[in-house]
């Protein structure tokens, strides 16, 4: 039956054609979907304007300054979209996206010609922060320690690795500057944290204790206190670390109340960060922890780009030893002053601690999910005691370091 075979072959050909067409459909559909979007926000901070550019894909970029505008060129073969929030800034007048021969340009127009800028970047997710300020403005942007101002256009970013070494070299005992303790009241806003069976919310307890701790420190120590939040608002976890780093924090204390499915779980514990990574990054980080003093000599320039990213994400890795000491001392004070069960010092991969570039701990005061401890956590007396214990711990730790 040759006719039958002929129809069969014709059928197969049509089938392949349909398959190919639908395949190409699927592919083009995917391509069209993956046009990266640049999210741009502009905020005025004291003395400078902060421009934040983020995107779901990593982009390579270069800077060019001319007159009163700054142009950031992006290589974007698959197109680029702009999503900017409305802003009002003293320095930044407008932000526009334009097509350029090699990709796209983000053109930032400012109100003056004599401005300088510095920037920092991270990948996954891609985020570029550019600080612009007028020349002669006194207060400098926080990232000024690794400012790339006045560098020729197209130079890759100076690295955060350099900043991190600087930070670790700074140490705790250095004099002649106001030292800062950052208190981080856990959760906030719709992120309530754990809930007790009487309806107590972790976010309220943490804020209340943090405020008491702030008062204690300001009364007893010559330290400036910065809170990551003063009200019942959402603050993203990476922003909390950024607040600490931008304020050049010397110590970072995150306050939490614990929760467990076990109603009987009880007690106080103090955490410092554990590096949860098993892969190559972790090994390199461990290397850093042990050799941070010789960082500049040991690292070949080829490795530099990768390393800066790792350090930005895991700034805390360089401070684990000091953090563990701080945790020990604070936990001892909690044991002395509170009648709670001692759960000891522990390590866990806390998101909020990873990016903090100074000794940092997270205190789990007591279990909000344990009805007895929930009542205790609500009481003003207990909260005052907790703040006092943490304050004593900080004080002892600082005395130890100032002697050295």
């Amino acid at each position, binding site marked *: 039956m040759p*006719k*039958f075979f002929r*129809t*069969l072959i014709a*059928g197969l050909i*049509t*089938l392949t054609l*349909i*398959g190919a067409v*639908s*395949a190409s*459909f*699927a592919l083009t*559909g*995917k391509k069209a979907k993956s046009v990266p979007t640049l999210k741009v926000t502009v905020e005025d901070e004291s003395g400078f304007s902060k421009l934040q550019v983020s995107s779901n894909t990593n982009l390579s970029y270069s800077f060019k300054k001319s007159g009163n505008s700054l142009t950031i060129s992006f290589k974007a073969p698959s197109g680029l979209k702009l999503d900017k929030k409305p802003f009002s800034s003293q320095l930044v007048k407008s932000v526009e996206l334009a097509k350029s021969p090699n990709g796209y340009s983000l053109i930032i127009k400012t109100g003056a010609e004599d401005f300088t800028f510095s920037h920092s970047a991270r990948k996954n997710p891609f985020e570029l922060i550019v600080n612009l300020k007028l020349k002669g403005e006194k207060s400098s942007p926080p990232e000024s320690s690794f400012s790339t101002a006045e560098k020729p256009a197209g130079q890759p970013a100076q690295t955060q690795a350099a900043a991190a070494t600087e930070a670790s070299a700074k140490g705790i005992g250095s004099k002649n500057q106001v030292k800062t303790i950052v208190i981080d009241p*856990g*959760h906030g806003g719709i*992120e309530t*944290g*754990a*809930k007790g069976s009487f309806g107590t919310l*972790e976010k309220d307890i943490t804020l209340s204790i943090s405020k008491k701790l702030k008062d204690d420190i300001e009364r007893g120590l010559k330290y400036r206190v910065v809170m990551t939040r003063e009200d019942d608002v959402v603050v993203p*976890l990476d922003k909390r670390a950024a607040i600490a780093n931008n304020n050049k924090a010397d110590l970072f204390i995150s306050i*939490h*109340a*614990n*929760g*467990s*499915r*076990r*109603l*009987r*779980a009880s007690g106080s514990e103090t*955490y410092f960060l554990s590096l*949860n*990574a*098993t892969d190559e990054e972790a090994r390199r980080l461990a290397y850093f922890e042990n050799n941070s003093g010789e960082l500049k000599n040991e690292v070949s320039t080829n490795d530099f780009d990768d390393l800066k990213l790792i350090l930005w994400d895991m700034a805390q890795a360089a401070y684990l030893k000091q953090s563990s000491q701080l945790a020990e001392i604070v936990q001892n004070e909690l044991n002395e002053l509170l009648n709670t069960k001692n*759960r000891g010092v522990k390590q*866990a*991969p*806390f*998101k*909020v601690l*990873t990016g903090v570039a100074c000794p940092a701990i*997270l205190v*789990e005061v007591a*279990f*909000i*999910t344990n009805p007895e401890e929930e009542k205790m956590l609500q009481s003003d007396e207990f909260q005052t005691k907790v703040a006092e214990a943490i304050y004593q711990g900080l004080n002892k730790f600082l005395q130890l370091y100032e002697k050295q």
Partner: protein
Amino acid sequence: MKTKKKKIRLFLILLSVLIIVVLIFFFGSRKEKIKHVVKPSGTSSAVKPTKTVQMKKVTLFFLSEDDNLLHPEEREIQASSSVNDEAKELVEELIKGSKTGLLGPIPENTRVRQVFITSDGTAYVDLSRNLLGANYYGSSGEMAVVYSIVNSLAYNFKSVKKVSLLVEGNERETLGGHIDLSQPFVPDYSLVAR
């Protein structure tokens, strides 16, 4: 002529079925948000699918009201030629909870969307959004969720070296503001009661 018409009709039916299959192949898979290239690792524990259902003994880790540790509980799951399927069933059993009075740390209404194990030994466990926002998600509550899953999978499947948790196909920062989920976890048997 009649037989020819019949054959053409039969052929057209077959053709439309094939087209539908092709369309499902190309468009159906696009719903999945997971971007990792997956290569199911080994079918070493392959059991020939026979009509009698083969069972496999596994050990699950639950919490106990008595201490802060994870406690093993034996369970039988349906053996499969695919490790991914067995791993999925194991996590489903874990969510169903203990049969011996232990406490399951994962919210019971959580669904397992998918479990797949890559050739480098990372098990991606993709769970529904019900996983998030439990009342008891303090640090300890989150640690219990993570390590009951990580330890149970790594303990029972040799091919699993580390575990990454996804929610609705995407990476999550944390479950409730504490433990960082962006890196895969290696098992930690120091959390298990002896």
